[in-house]
């Protein structure tokens, strides 16, 4: 498979009044042509910052201190603003989290959808609007032709997210970054948007980086999954590896805290105890160790390297070291593997 994007050892700091926040502490991953990579993790784990680094859309107090982001071998971090403008919205585009605030309230949606074409392609206004209409049809806006001159406030939340998606795909990007595109929507609309993204991916063959904190959504869309915690990846692999054979205790915790349909009504939903570390002073060892009941002594002292579990499946936990005691995932997590298998089959069938 073709690697179109390679992120290597990315480090991002934020300068704040309280000091330097080490938001991203060495993240590496790659993206193959046509695949969907899901990045999961809780709020503040650095998912959004990672993808905003790719787009070079970070806040002004940020500082990329290390690493490279290679797009077809070209380091995006070395490009000027002007060169990045040619890539943004053209080769790499992005879908944002909140459809209610992502659209310009004073511009017609026809113009907003046509805008990337007007910027990147030498194309007439009329032709761009025609193309906008096609794409709006594609994302499922009823009567798209008649609604080109309408404004965002005349659409519902779900429709607005479809419009935001239309803006992102209008120029057939090679990479589509979706930053929690379903978080602000209700569950039925969520499912529609996920289906739409899958359908569009088949039609235009784009690669997708999908950011979410919802593992249920991941199971439905991803080929590969990267789990992020406190500014680092802790585990990555194919979607099956993560759901049926997770190795990192943090991944176990995430899976365990996902509600399923056949939970007993008297049963508490499991959660991960504690809170994520303060990234003003990142911990020396494994950042998850203080919340991890399987933590070893070395976890507090030294950052675990990635251990290979199988082809494409890696996890950064000392538990995989040959000398470590054998630990199996908690029973409640193991019980879920079968459920996920069923769930996965219904999702794909």
């Amino acid at each position, binding site marked *: 498979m073709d690697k179109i994007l390679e992120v290597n050892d990315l480090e991002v700091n934020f300068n704040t009044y309280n000091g330097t926040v080490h938001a991203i502490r060495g993240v590496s991953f790659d993206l193959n042509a046509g695949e969907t990579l899901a990045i999961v993790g809780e709020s503040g784990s650095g998912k959004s910052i990672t993808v905003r680094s790719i*787009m070079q*859309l970070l806040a002004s107090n940020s500082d990329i201190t290390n690493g490279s982001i290679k797009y077809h071998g070209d380091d995006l971090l070395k490009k000027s*603003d*002007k060169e990045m*403008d*040619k*890539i*943004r*919205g*053209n080769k790499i*585009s*992005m879908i*944002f989290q*909140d459809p209610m*605030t*992502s*659209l*310009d*309230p*004073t*511009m017609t949606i026809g113009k907003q959808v046509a*805008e*990337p074409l007007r*910027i*990147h392609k030498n194309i007439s206004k009329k032709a761009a609007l025609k193309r906008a209409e096609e794409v709006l049809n594609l994302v499922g806006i009823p009567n798209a032709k008649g609604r080109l001159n309408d*404004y965002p*406030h*005349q659409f519902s939340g779900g429709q607005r997210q479809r419009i*935001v998606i239309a*803006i992102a795909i209008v120029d057939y990007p090679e990479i589509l970054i979706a930053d929690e595109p379903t978080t602000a929507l209700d569950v039925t609309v969520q499912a529609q948007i996920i289906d739409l993204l899958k359908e569009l991916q088949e039609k235009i063959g784009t690669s997708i980086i999908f950011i979410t904190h919802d593992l249920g959504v991941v199971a439905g869309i991803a080929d590969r999954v990267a789990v992020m915690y406190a500014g680092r990846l802790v585990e990555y692999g194919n979607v099956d590896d993560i759901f049926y054979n997770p190795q990192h205790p943090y991944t176990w915790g995430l899976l365990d805290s996902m509600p399923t349909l056949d939970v007993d009504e008297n049963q508490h939903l499991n959660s991960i105890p504690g809170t994520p570390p303060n990234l003003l002073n990142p911990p020396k060892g494994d950042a998850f160790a203080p919340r991890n009941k399987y933590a070893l002594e070395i976890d507090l002292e030294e950052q675990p390297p990635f251990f290979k579990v199988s082809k494409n499946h890696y996890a950064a936990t000392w538990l995989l070291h040959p000398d470590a005691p054998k630990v199996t995932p908690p029973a409640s997590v193991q019980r879920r593997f079968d459920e996920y298998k069923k769930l996965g089959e219904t999702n794909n069938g």
Partner: protein
Amino acid sequence: MTKYILKRILYLFITLFIVATITFFLMKLLPGTPFSNQNRLAPEQLALVKKQYGLDQPIWIQYLKYLDSLLHGNLGTSFQFNNEPVTELITSRLAPSMQIGAQAMILGTILGILLGAVSAFKKDTWVDTTATFFSILGLSIPSFVLAIVLQFYLALKWGIFPVALWKNFQSSILPTLALAALPLGNIARFMRTEMVDVLSSDYIELAKAKGNSSWQVVAKHALRNSLIPIITIIGPMAVGIMTGSMVVENIFSIPGIGDQFVSSIITNDYPTIMGLTIFYSFLLIIIYLVVDILYGIVDPRIRLGNGGKE
């Protein structure tokens, strides 16, 4: 939209009627008569003059007569100023006031928007600090002080512009500058705050993600969205500038309308007071109507008649 404007014009006439009524009776409460200074008139002559102007009749008859002539577009003749018709009096004196008022508003608004936008765009840099310094200066210096300073340096000392009087376009420049400082400072402050807010919004990030360069983002998306609250303050400010230019007009000896208003009140010149009040009300209502229409143009969410649902 047409229906809305027609409705607003109907309201305009109702408002003018109410303004005319209140002003008429308030004016009659002023002490003295238009002729109280004419000591040389014998009582018989005074009675004759009063009769000539209809001032001997009961107030309500005077009121009805006034309304009648108003309906025919007649504002009466002035008791002062050589018995000139009030309509002519206003139009001849209106031009200078309106010209410097409008020039000051246009200049202040455009420069204010630019200054505020640049300030927000270059937030927390020396550009921002400098722009903020000038806008606060404009806000806090009273227009008559600025008028005198401008007059002293630009006219008296360096002789670039005429010191005073109303002759040509050159003579309108200094009063315009003096009046423009306040709207400029005010609008720049508002614009900066609003634009900083807009620039941090999600749709601006999306606009960047589309591949717009920084200035394209400002020109295509940020500017228009920042203008919405600016329009709100432009209305009252325009009225303030157009009616409150009296002192500046005085400093530059401009034969404007403000000066005339004051002297007509001092001399109980009833028709002129009425005429000017009605005219100012008319101006005010029209400016607010224009502001409301502008709103709709800039912000589609409050555009009328398209059933905009939220």
